[in-house]
């Protein structure tokens, strides 16, 4: 949709920006793009494909467990399925969807920027993500997938007990994947710091951006622990190091500590984008500003921060000294508080607003119900004796699926409906949307709630079968039925969005009367997002009608236009004062040229061709030099 202009001057200006920013069409355009919206869509569809794969794995798992003693898949395949299911959903779906797709596409729009701070790095991150995902899946497709569980405890993951390549696919794949994630997180942090529209001081930054900022920080500080751990594992497995060998002065618990120092913050990284989406959808549909805005903003950061101090609650059954366990139990209880702040801010805003329960808000309502349920069962793990009783049972499986499926994915689904008109320019079908919500919501309860009960009855995690007569059969059958209902709900969402893409009514720039700047652009947004960089005077810039009229005037006058090439203003970190004018790079093949040899490095490492890996690494450096020889120039 074209930008509304009222005078020939404005028309000329917009046309000029169009000419400067429009990228190559066709496949080549997609391979060399550096535009955050295109890259966001690439992340979206790729992570969606991995979601589908992870979903099929989940259905196979549930089918195998529908009744006692079934033989749908072999134990070996079952173990690969649940391992890859976990890895897929965490590393290849929720995180890339949350920051790679939603963050990438929406964050610059929300802060009034034209792109991320490092557009080429953004594309490199996508290639790394795609390649690492394919790398991990190659193992599964070759029948040698990881089968040691997603947290891959040693010594089970050592070469002695997992001699195949499965663990190596996992370890190298995740190191590769975390390079992608770190790159995106870094990009988002610098973008939120330096690319906010003039006037958008820290107190006026949308809560969605606070959430994205928190996720990015969490990932930057959590992933190194995983990387270190995986490097230790690979050194032990391949070169005979002794990190995890207690007989030789190593420690098996070292793996667990490092893994969970990463693993628990990662859980918050999974939920935070969802919180961000909730805080975008609620004010739009309640038509009311968020209650306790400063508390919610800080709560989003605090969730990420305190999340670093709770890791050992995953290890209460290892027999650590009581006194050390205390630290983590206490933090585990208090990390609840930032979430209670947000829950009551959301629900009070809904209750005190004039809410319209359209599909996106329904998904958020569902999210709150699931999040509270999963959160309350999560609180129980801080009670050490209870944790020691139920850890590694289906009670835990129930808890974390309520959180990382129910709470983390429902807002992503609601967000898909919410921003569908923005991205495509068309409205989705509301009755179908509501139906899909109820199907998915009830499916989620039916799938995951009975897991609490079988867990309390003694059903442990990661069993490929169980015996009849333990009182678990009916619950398991219900869970399996629920999982198919849930899948049907998800398919219905896909059907709705696909049909609406063709047949939906035209949406207009801001069909929800939503308050953030993403709705200031036409739907879909032009490649440069904003013809003039908006000025911001509150956290709800779209509800400041005067300012938006002023944008129109400034387009006439050419104020804050930045049309001398790929330009974008940089602003100061704290108070978003205009600082300098950046020249952003244009489309480039360099990210692809760097990603190819880096992918080969990991393939070579996997196949133990260490010299080859070195050579490919050198090739990657040459490609990087090529990248940096091409400096962004003024057009």
């Amino acid at each position: 949709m074209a930008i509304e202009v009222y005078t020939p001057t404005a028309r000329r200006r917009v046309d000029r920006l169009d000419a400067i920013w429009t990228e190559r069409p066709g496949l080549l355009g997609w391979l060399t793009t550096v535009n955050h919206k295109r890259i966001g869509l690439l992340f979206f569809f790729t992570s969606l494909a991995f979601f589908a794969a992870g979903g099929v794995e989940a259905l196979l798992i549930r089918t195998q467990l529908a009744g006692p003693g079934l033989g749908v898949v072999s134990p070996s395949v079952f173990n690969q399925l649940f391992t890859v299911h976990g890895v897929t959903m965490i590393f290849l779906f929720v995180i890339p969807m949350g920051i790679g797709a939603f963050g990438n596409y929406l964050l610059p729009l929300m802060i009034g920027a034209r792109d991320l701070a490092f557009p080429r790095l953004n594309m490199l991150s996508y290639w790394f993500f795609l390649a690492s995902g394919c790398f991990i899946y190659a193992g599964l497709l070759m029948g040698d997938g990881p089968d040691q569980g997603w947290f891959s405890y040693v010594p089970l993951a050592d070469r002695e007990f997992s001699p195949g390549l499965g663990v190596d696919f996992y370890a190298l794949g995740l190191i590769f994947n975390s390079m992608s994630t770190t790159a995106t997180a870094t990009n988002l942090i610098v973008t939120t710091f330096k690319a906010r529209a003039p006037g958008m001081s820290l107190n006026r930054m949308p809560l969605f951006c606070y959430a994205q900022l928190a996720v990015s920080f969490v990932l930057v500080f959590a992933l190194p622990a995983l990387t270190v751990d995986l490097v230790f594992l690979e050194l032990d497995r391949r070169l005979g190091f002794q990190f995890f060998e207690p007989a030789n002065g190593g420690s098996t618990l070292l793996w667990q500590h490092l893994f969970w120092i990463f693993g628990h913050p990662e859980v918050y990284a999974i939920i935070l984008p969802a919180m961000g989406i909730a805080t975008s959808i609620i004010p739009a549909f309640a038509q009311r500003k968020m209650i306790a805005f400063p508390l919610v903003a800080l709560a989003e950061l605090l969730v990420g921060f305190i999340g670093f101090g709770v890791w050992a609650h995953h290890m209460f059954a290892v027999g650590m000294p009581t006194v050390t366990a205390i630290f983590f139990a206490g933090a585990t209880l208090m990390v609840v508080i930032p979430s209670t702040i947000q829950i009551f801010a959301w629900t009070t805003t809904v209750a005190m607003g004039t809410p319209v329960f359209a599909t996106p808000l329904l998904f958020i309502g569902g999210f709150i119900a699931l999040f509270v349920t999963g959160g309350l069962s999560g609180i129980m793990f801080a009670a050490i004796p209870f944790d020691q009783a139920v850890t590694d049972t289906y009670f835990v499986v129930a808890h974390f699926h309520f959180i990382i499926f129910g709470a983390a994915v429902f807002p992503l689904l609601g967000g898909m409906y919410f921003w569908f008109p923005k991205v495509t320019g068309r409205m989705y079908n509301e009755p179908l949307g509501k139906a899909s919500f109820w199907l998915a919501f009830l499916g989620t309860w039916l799938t995951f709630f009975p897991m609490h009960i079988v867990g309390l009855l003694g059903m442990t995690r990661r069993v490929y079968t169980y015996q009849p007569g333990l009182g678990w059969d009916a619950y398991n059958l219900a869970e399996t039925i629920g999982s198919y209902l849930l899948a049907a709900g998800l398919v219905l969402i896909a059907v709705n969005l696909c049909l609406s893409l063709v047949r939906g009514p035209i949406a207009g720039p801001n069909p929800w009367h939503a308050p953030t700047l993403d709705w200031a652009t036409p739907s879909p947004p032009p490649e440069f997002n904003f013809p003039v960089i908006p000025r911001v005077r509150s956290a709800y810039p779209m509800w400041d009608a005067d300012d938006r009229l002023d944008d129109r005037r400034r387009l006439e006058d050419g104020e804050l236009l930045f049309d001398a090439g790929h330009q974008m203003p940089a602003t100061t970190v704290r108070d978003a004062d205009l600082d300098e004018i950046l020249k952003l790079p244009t489309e480039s093949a360099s990210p692809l040229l760097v990603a190819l040899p880096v992918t080969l490095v990991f393939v070579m490492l996997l196949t133990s061709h260490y010299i080859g890996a070195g050579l490919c690494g050198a090739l990657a450096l040459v490609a990087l030099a090529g990248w940096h020889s091409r400096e962004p120039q003024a057009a």
Partner: protein
Amino acid sequence: MLRPESPQEDRISTLFWIMFGGCLVGLGVVAAFLLLGWLRRHRPGLPGGGGDNAGSGIVIVLGVAVPIVVLSALFWYSDLHALNATAAPAAGSGQLQVEVTGHQWFWEVRYPGTEAVTANEIHIPAGVGVELIAKTADVIHSFWVPRLARKIDMIPGHPNRIELYARDPGIYRGRCSEFCGLQHANMQLLVVAESQQQFQRWLADMGAPAAEPAGAHANRGRGLFLENACAGCHTIRGTAATGTLGPDLTHLGSRLTLGAGTLRNTTGDLAAWVLDPHQAKPGNRMPRLSLPKSDFNDLIAYLETLR
């Protein structure tokens, strides 16, 4: 866990029900807020909308103040009071010790100070606190008998302890609860709590070497056991079989299950197990044995005598 049989598990169960009650209240409050929003849908202009700062008080009270108090209370109750009541016994404090070692995928059970060795079945006297020492021979396993005690991981190079106590005689199921590889699902065990006399008799039986097989078939069966691969992995005390990869079979016939809870220990199931261990427990470490039918029958006859 919901039907506790020990004081420790009573505590854990009580703790659960207290927290469960709290959860219902919490969920109820949030649901009430959402319901209120639902009732107010599409009705602009209702009183209660408030200004920009309205409602902050609710967030501060319900979101910060109340949870801090409630959660701190839970912390001190659960991690001081309940924790100390379910704490691990100090080393050597129990009058009876049992040492359980996890293997892929069975449990080796020893009673320190006696000769008794068995597998996948722990006998304890009811009403007596037993100090259980948890070890592993390979990967990490976790020992868990839901009705009797919390679980304890078996970590290489790091022996752990818990107290095992059963109030009443009975048979209690347990299972490995840390993923330990292909047959994690079929790594179960039974705790048999019995009267003190029964237990002492059992313990003495377990300590004794295997009885001489009676009858020609069984005797031939023993020969076959020792000649074939069996003896390389299994121990039968009182014979030349001293393998340690598989469970001790000295008193196999007295056990309730085969394959760590995979099958019941009946003649038919035993024969089926030896004929093809991978039928019921695919991928376990025991190889398939190809013997002529008569030899096979003799072998089973011998194993049946190991009581």
